[in-house]
């Protein structure tokens, strides 16, 4: 008898070959979501947002942040699982990468291209910035407060906003104690921006939360959370 994982892969192969409708989806229902990146070890395989199996979003700039590369094709090394980009005929300049793996896990890298006709650059793992690692919380809890910051909102619906221009939100719902448990969140000096709705989907406020060493904090109205990254070369001005 095939293992669960193997039988799911076989179902996927049938779907790919036949490209048939309902039967394929029914057969794949028990396939396990495979994260599209290496979840930090401290998180024990759980990372909120990783279940969607989406490619990381990478902001790539050079020329002191004035030139962008758009939707640049990413590839993932099969044996290590690390994502990389291959630049064809790169300019000899610093390339700056800001990678968003989930709304709660990012990495940054500034690296000078040095190879032609192509240069392969590996993206840092989640939570890594210029070789340093952000503190990562395997579990981080946020309590969703009302507009006055006085009471929790049971069952609040919260859109978490990834910190890249043009992002769409990632939606989670609080429990009846107004708490959302986030798996695998990196500490962020600017905190995280959110939009809060009632449990029936009525808009309440824009706000955010700071990340605190105790592993929990409150979502409150207002503030200026989750600033988008400023692009700079090492030692240089933005």
């Amino acid at each position, binding site marked *: 008898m095939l293992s669960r994982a193997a039988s799911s892969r076989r179902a996927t192969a049938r779907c790919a070959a036949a490209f048939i409708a309902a039967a394929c989806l029914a057969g794949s229902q028990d396939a396990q979501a495979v994260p599209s990146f290496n979840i930090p070890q401290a998180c024990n395989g759980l990372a909120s947002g990783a279940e969607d199996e989406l490619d990381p979003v990478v902001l790539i700039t050079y020329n002191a942040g004035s030139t962008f590369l758009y939707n640049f094709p990413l590839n993932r090394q099969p044996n290590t699982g690390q994502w990389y980009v291959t630049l064809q005929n790169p300019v000899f300049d610093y390339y700056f990468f800001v990678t968003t793996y989930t709304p709660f896990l990012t990495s940054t890298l500034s690296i000078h291209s040095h190879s032609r006709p192509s240069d392969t650059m590996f993206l840092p793992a989640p939570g890594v910035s210029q070789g340093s690692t952000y503190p990562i919380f395997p579990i981080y809890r946020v309590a969703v407060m009302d507009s006055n910051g006085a009471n929790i909102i049971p069952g609040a619906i919260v859109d978490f906003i990834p910190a*890249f221009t043009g992002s769409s939100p990632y939606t989670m719902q609080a429990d009846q104690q107004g708490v959302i448990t986030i798996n695998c969140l990196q500490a962020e000096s600017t905190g995280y921006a959110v939009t809060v709705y009632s449990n029936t989907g009525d808009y309440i406020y824009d706000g955010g939360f700071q990340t605190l060493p105790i592993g929990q904090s409150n979502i409150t109205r207002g503030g200026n959370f989750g600033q988008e990254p400023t692009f700079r070369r090492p030692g240089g001005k933005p």
Partner: protein
Amino acid sequence: MIRRALIVGLLLALPQLAQAQSVVTFTIQTQNVLRFGHGSRLLTQCVSIANFAPQVDIIVMQEVMTPGYPCLIGNNNKGVNGNYPPNFAYRTSGWKGRSSYIEYYGILHRTAGGANSVAFLGQDDNLGSQVTYMRPPYGALFRVTGANNQSCDVWIVDFHAVFGKTIGLRRNEAAAMENIYQHLRGLNNGAVLILGDWNLEANDTGFDWVDNIANQAMIDPNVRTSLTRAGALSSEYDHAVTQAAPTLAIGPAIPPLLPTSWIYPSAANWVTWRNQTSDHLGVRLSVTVTC
């Protein structure tokens, strides 16, 4: 304030005209497909679309990540070797976005194999500026021909609003859409439908212009169509702004037939849909155009 859809019967009761009118009824679905082409769920996304395509004539998609239908082997690096749904053709916009992250708009339209055929006539991919919109909308003009061989032309505008950190950003984009709506109506060469993911509920002040009688517009639905990670309904983000039946003049008019349910798929499948296809349900409208 409440924005209501008009009933087909009102249109049929209007005075007779000197010229014969054409009437066509077609089905259109707007669908945010969650980073369509940039994830390992691409295969199941393609299968989902192939599943429901036989039920509709036009599919308006947002969050398309490639400049071509992602299910085709040359348009993805996920090993998916698919095709368009049978009897459908595809139109794509140019890239949309302000930094490295960009999306495209995609529209699948039926060319045969059903009661209707939908022929592409032209497009306008410059309806709005990058200053006003994160992702300026894309408009395509189609000729819908029914089984009775009557035809009407329609502008289908595909739109994915900014989200941003404040609701004001989304409101501004929704409000600015009035200019595009008026512009297309002013061309007087097709009825106007603007569909997509607005990241706002339909009762938001960003849509106050819909209530302006002079615009003769309406917006539907206002039901929760986005899903939490657990597959539960969350927000009212997906709508269609359409041209209402004019009361004083006969022209291209679109009173929608009220469906029994606006959203696809049904509740029994939301968890699977969230896991395999998208964090948005589809919004489906049955539209009747008189021209």
